[in-house]
């Protein structure tokens, strides 16, 4: 069964995807050409990794390492 997920790249945009059974965060990001190197990965707000399996309705968020305060 295909699953519906959203990928939010903070500071950029939110995209929606259908993924196949067994697909992980990493395989989806590879497929859509997003390199998460150095960014925090979250699934539904919870710290995750490339190996985290995707479920229907998941929101994958990529959080950049920001440092400003000015």
């Amino acid at each position, binding site marked *: 069964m295909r699953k519906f997920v959203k990928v939010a790249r903070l*500071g*950029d945009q*939110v995209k929606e995807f259908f993924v196949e059974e067994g697909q992980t965060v990493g395989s989806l990001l590879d497929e859509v050409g997003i390199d998460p190197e150095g960014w925090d990965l979250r699934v539904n707000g919870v710290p995750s990794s490339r190996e985290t399996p995707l479920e229907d309705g998941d929101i994958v968020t990529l959080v*950049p390492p920001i*440092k*400003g*305060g*000015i």
Partner: protein
Amino acid sequence: MIDIDFWRQLDIVSPEDLASLRVTVIGVGGIGSPTTLALAKMGIRNIIVYDDDKVEPHNLPNQFYKKTDLGVLKVCALANLVDEFANATIEARAERFDGSQELSGVVVSGVDTMEARKLIWTAVKFNPAVQLYVEARMGAEIARIHTVQPSDIFGVKWYESTLYTDEEAVQAPCTARAIIYCSLMIGALVANQVKKFANAEAWAREVIFDMMTLSLIVNY
């Protein structure tokens, strides 16, 4: 000085709940200026602010200063604003925090480098006088707010996992670093964390928001 009537917020937080709080705000730019104002308007009366910068023209759009503050030390300008907007007095220290100053109570970090954050963290970590540490980061339309009790070993371990170097951080272009609605949102969220702490309510150790994608992540 006139008496302020806090009637409209008494069932949210009362001045009595905040009376014993001492809050130190380090850095009063885009994060620290709206935060200090929110804390003072909320009713906190023991606030110390550190910063050695002066108000410059590029600060006016995204920091809580006005045109007559140009060229004035930010801490002095902020003290005047707090007096005017909140009928309160803050202790303005026109100096850069270098780790030698004593910290206590609630410490809010609004600095703009990871190096400065690490310096503050060194002064805060396991410091028995510091009850709560609230550290905010801003980049374009994104903000991250971390809240930890420096005496909590698990909190300390978690917070340190959020630190990275300035080189590892994403450096937004000079023209995409700050915007007023993000600053106001950070001020509101930091003040809310402090209110939760004062009321012994559950505060979030991590709040991340992005105005660009309208994403919000909250972890307790």
